[in-house]
């Protein structure tokens, strides 16, 4: 545990060193500023409240899209994994949506619904639902028929069956879908903001892109990366350890 943390720390320090060396070789701060040059603009944005406002906007969109995509994907994946008939009917749809480029869905949502919050969140959700569904469906197919039979004989209520028999079996798949889900969703949210919102990290990156301000693009991007890493380490990984507790006990 501590060993792997040391390695992670050294590895990240190496990345910053690499960046610093690259900045030194480029010798042009408008193309690649050295890491230290980001601190002052970062503190300025933080103090003005701009950074926190836009971080907040993006996080809310990520949270909504994540919850909707996980909820819908879980329900669909479970239904398709349990019913071969439903799967035969819905699988072609799934394949179509899996192969629809994120950009196409985003543009279509904006065109059909308008440049608003609903369209933005819907576009991100629709991009992620097929992946979650595919992963959960695999898990649902592997659900133990013996435990199913046991639950039926003892007439367990559907809620108890779902929460204590089915979902624990799906936990590794849910955790996998959640982790890859968060990673993909926040990236798509930035694109959605870039294309059609007037707040959020994606919007700020769009703005500084038009000003060719590499420093500010990096300040906003890195701040958000830091937040998403914190979510991964502080929420997702501990949760995964908790649901896996019975395996290692």
């Amino acid at each position, binding site marked *: 545990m501590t060993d792997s943390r040391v390695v992670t720390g050294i590895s990240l320090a190496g990345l910053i060193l690499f960046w610093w060396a690259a900045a030194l070789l480029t010798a042009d701060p408008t193309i690649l500023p050295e890491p230290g040059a980001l601190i002052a603009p970062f503190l300025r944005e933080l103090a003005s409240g701009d950074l926190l406002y836009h971080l907040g906007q993006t996080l809310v969109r990520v949270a909504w899209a994540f919850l909707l995509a996980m909820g819908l994907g879980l329900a669909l994946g479970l239904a398709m994994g349990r019913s071969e008939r439903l799967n035969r009917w819905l699988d072609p749809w799934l394949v179509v949506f899996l192969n629809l480029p994120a950009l196409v869905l985003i543009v279509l949502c904006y065109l059909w619904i308008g440049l608003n919050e609903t369209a933005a969140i819907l576009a991100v959700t629709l991009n992620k639902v097929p992946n979650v569904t595919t992963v959960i469906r695999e898990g649902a197919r592997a659900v133990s028929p013996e435990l199913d039979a046991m639950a039926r004989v003892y007439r367990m209520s559907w809620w108890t069956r779902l929460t*204590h028999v089915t979902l624990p079996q799906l936990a590794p798949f849910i955790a996998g879908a959640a982790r890859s889900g968060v990673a993909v969703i926040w990236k798509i949210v930035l694109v959605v903001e870039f294309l059609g919102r007037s707040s959020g990290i994606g919007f700020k990156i769009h703005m500084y892109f038009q000003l060719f301000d590499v420093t500010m693009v990096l300040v906003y991007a890195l701040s958000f990366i830091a937040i998403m890493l914190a979510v991964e380490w502080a929420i997702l990984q501990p949760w995964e350890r908790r649901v896996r507790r019975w395996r290692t*006990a």
Partner: protein
Amino acid sequence: MGDPATLGTARAPLADGMIRVEIKEKRFGRLPVLSHVAFEVAPAETVAITGPSGIGKSTLLRIVAGIDKEFAGRVDTPARIAMVFQEPTLLPWRSARENLTLVHPGLTRAEADAALARVGLAEKAGDFPGQLSLGQQRRLALARAFAGRPELLILDEPFVSLDPETAETMIALTEALIKEARPATLFVTHSETEARRLATRILSLRGSPATLAPHAVPIKGVNP
């Protein structure tokens, strides 16, 4: 599902509490497995079903238990059914105590602990099934079956793949619990000795498709 005409019906038990099984036919695809299997189990009676491996004993139990509903015929069973499977079939992600209280929501913590103590698992209430030995897991499965005070208990080769000593402990425990709770019991085994020891009556499945052999005679002189 399938053609409604081919589906079996499970109906509420009659007032006398008898368990009635009338299976006209059970097929897997086009292969008939069971044909004209009809018998009754009276309250507190223990009936063993014997027969060679693969003849359809487990299929018969699954129909009686209500797990398999695709058959022609009808089965009348009481509301409270418990089943002990060939494998312990526990929830590995829940503690031993939760394995009882989740399956039987009416069970209090104290009752669950008493049920665990009855099978010698008093110390293990907080352990996950994976921390228990196979023998302990089977005893937990037995505790789970009896905790619901079943009117019908179904045992599907519960002593198979156990070493002789553990099997003996399990058989003795099962025997004692059946005596205490007195459910109607239906159990499958391919061991004639087990059948003679626990059962008041033995039915044997023979042939293909399997049907009940005619020599279904009482063996302990218990005539319900």
